[in-house]
């Protein structure tokens, strides 16, 4: 997918002035976070489970080579295939070749952020293979040619009216000529349209929440059941997942599932939890004849063993974005690439470069709300700060900001000089701001005064000046 992360500020500007988006975000902000809070409160061991989830992922990442090879051995023993894709391009090629090998015309897709990461749909379309998104949200944005705006709710930026218009536009030719207004009717119409596509598909492609090393299973959670159709009906099943999705055991999966759904939607469990373990066996009534797992690295392994490794614990629940006030203000598209919100601000610079995505880790107040709800306790503010430091080291920070910072830190290390300058600034600001107590505009502070008044200092001098006056007589 082509990144617009460089244009983050412009993207954010447009998002803030998009009334439909702002309507959708207003609902999201209340809904997800309130449901997560209630789910966490209902489960006394929730905080302890978060610790265990973190520890499971840490243990796996520290032994990632072992568990990936273990997973591969199990898949091979089941009669499946594992394909290693170092880059996005490799993954696209592998999947295209697999599709061509069975002469696929259409593939039914469900639930894969990694396929967005590697730009799979555009690639397949160019080869004459039609990818059909079967998750309702993914299907809606596919019709609109938009990227997802949220990792678990890809069409969360749209209002119901926008969806109704989109369906009318695209389903008219299939005989659905009435503009629907009820949520259930929209879902029913999508189901009718999609059901035939499930039946027509030659290949089913889905992502994975977890790859279980001990059994060679891929595990996927959905609320729509679409994944079960997309991976049982077609002849070939392809699972696309990144390296950090592997976990050691089913027991570990049980722990992670318990924190995943609660953190994501506030559900105790997603409606469907599907395990796929190899191709159809002799005697099975259904299932794919071929079972392929494509495992993508795309730069992830380079953070193993570093302090940035923590980002690979992510289980893609979306809680960080649901609780992020910046995401809540601008939505997911403004981030300009596949993964939005706090986890996107950490992953994107790793995956497409800090030169391209430097705005993302900067656009945070470090309020820490994301870290406080992360089910695997990823220290997201610390990781964002890491990118700011890399940016600063490489002189990518804007020059005016660097110079201002250099001057300020020169003064801040010299208390006597600082006192003189702050005393002067205090007097000046207090003098001219005395009548009103604030400024409506202030030179060099337009970023502030464009939207806010700037409070003037209290009269009487700085704290240190006043303190020194009060205590000068009693000091030796």
């Amino acid at each position: 997918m082509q990144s617009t992360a460089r244009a983050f500020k412009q993207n954010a500007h447009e998002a803030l002035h998009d009334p439909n988006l702002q309507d959708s975000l207003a609902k999201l902000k209340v809904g997800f976070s309130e449901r997560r809070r209630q789910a966490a409160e209902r489960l006394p061991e929730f905080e302890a489970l978060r610790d265990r989830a973190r520890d499971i992922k840490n243990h796996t990442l520290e032994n990632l080579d072992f568990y990936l090879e273990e997973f591969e051995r199990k898949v091979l023993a089941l009669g499946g295939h594992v394909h290693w894709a170092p880059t996005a391009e490799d993954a696209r090629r592998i999947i295209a070749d697999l599709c061509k090998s069975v002469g696929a015309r259409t593939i039914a897709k469900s639930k894969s952020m990694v396929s967005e990461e590697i730009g799979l749909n555009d690639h397949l379309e160019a080869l004459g293979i039609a990818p059909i998104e079967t998750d309702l949200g993914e299907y809606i944005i596919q019709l609109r040619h938009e990227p997802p705006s949220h990792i678990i709710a890809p069409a969360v930026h749209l209002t119901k009216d926008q969806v109704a218009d989109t369906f009318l536009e695209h389903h008219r030719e299939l005989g659905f000529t009435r503009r629907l207004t009820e949520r259930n009717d929209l879902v029913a119409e999508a189901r009718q349209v999609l059901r035939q596509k499930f039946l027509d598909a030659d290949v089913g492609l889905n992502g994975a929440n977890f790859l279980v090393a001990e059994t060679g299973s891929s595990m996927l959670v959905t609320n729509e059941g679409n994944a079960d159709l997309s991976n049982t009906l077609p002849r070939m099943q392809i699972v696309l997942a990144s390296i950090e999705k592997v976990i050691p055991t089913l027991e570990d999966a049980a722990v992670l599932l318990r924190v995943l759904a609660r953190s994501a939607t506030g559900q105790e469990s997603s409606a469907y939890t599907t395990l796929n373990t190899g191709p159809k066996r002799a005697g099975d009534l259904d299932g794919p004849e071929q079972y392929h797992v494509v495992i993508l690295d795309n730069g992830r392994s380079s953070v193993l063993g570093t302090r940035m490794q923590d980002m690979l614990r992510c289980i893609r629940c979306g809680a960080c974005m649901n609780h992020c006030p910046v995401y809540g203000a601008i939505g997911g598209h403004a981030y300009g690439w596949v993964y939005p919100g706090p986890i996107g601000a950490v992953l994107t610079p790793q995956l497409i470069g800090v030169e391209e995505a430097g705005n993302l880790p900067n656009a945070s107040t470090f309020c820490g709300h994301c870290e406080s709800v992360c089910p695997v306790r990823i220290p997201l503010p610390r990781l964002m700060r890491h990118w700011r430091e890399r940016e600063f080291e490489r002189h990518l920070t804007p020059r005016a900001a660097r110079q201002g910072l250099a001057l300020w830190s020169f003064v801040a290390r010299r208390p006597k000089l600082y006192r003189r300058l702050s005393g002067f600034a205090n007097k000046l600001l207090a003098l001219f701001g005395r009548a009103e107590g604030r400024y409506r505009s202030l030179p060099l502070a337009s970023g502030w005064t464009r939207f806010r008044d700037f409070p003037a200092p209290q009269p009487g001098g700085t704290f240190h000046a006043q303190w020194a006056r009060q205590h000068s007589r009693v000091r030796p």
Partner: protein
Amino acid sequence: MSRPPPRRVALFVTCLVDLFRPSVGFAAVKLLEDAGCIVEVPPLQVCCGQPAYNSGDRASTKAIARQVIGAFEGYQHVVAPSGSCAGMLSHHYPGLFDDDPAMKTRAENLAARTHELMAFLVDVLGVTKVAARYDGVVTYHDSCSGLRELGVKQQPRTLLGSVQGLGLREMKTPEVCCGFGGTFCVKYPEISNAMVGEKTSDIEASGADTVLAGDLGCLMNMAGKLQREGRAVQVRHVAEVLADMGALAPIGQGEGGER
């Protein structure tokens, strides 16, 4: 019962309080002295270094941290009327010196002695009430660093509960960031504006006539927005109200202010 010896507390004034709102510093001194502490103000203190730290300038941050660590050596406790500055000293300084064991020890020592004012009064000194009066309905904004790094939540509310004449009315989302974020508010002014706009709506909807918080950066941000929107809500640092300084002009209002 013999009284314990008075605690020797160094006040970390913070650069915003020093420059814009000295009364917060004096309020902190009064609250600490009323609780039996001997308060000193180490003269070599300036800023905790957050502007550099949050801009990715680690070298400058370390230089500033060294100086702060030196300035506060030898004091039993270090107390700041700010969750964000106290959090910088107590949660972030030690990590700056992973490659310098001697400095790391000193940083950890400072970290262990550093407290946010509300948490120090309630959790360390055991203060449960103050001698103050404030005739008004207040709402309390939980500033992010204090809340999530230091666990400051109930302490200010406990103390406010003892203020004569004061009523507390909570916002819907007191824990959501106000959009200040240090340099964030000038680097991303439009996003910051949207965030503080939500906050001021929430403040107004609470029905309170005064908003309090424990961090001057957040308070200046909220005051500036409330005033730009023409909302009549007063903005004060919680320490001022607890120290019975509620008659001072609120933040961003001139000497001719109405209260």
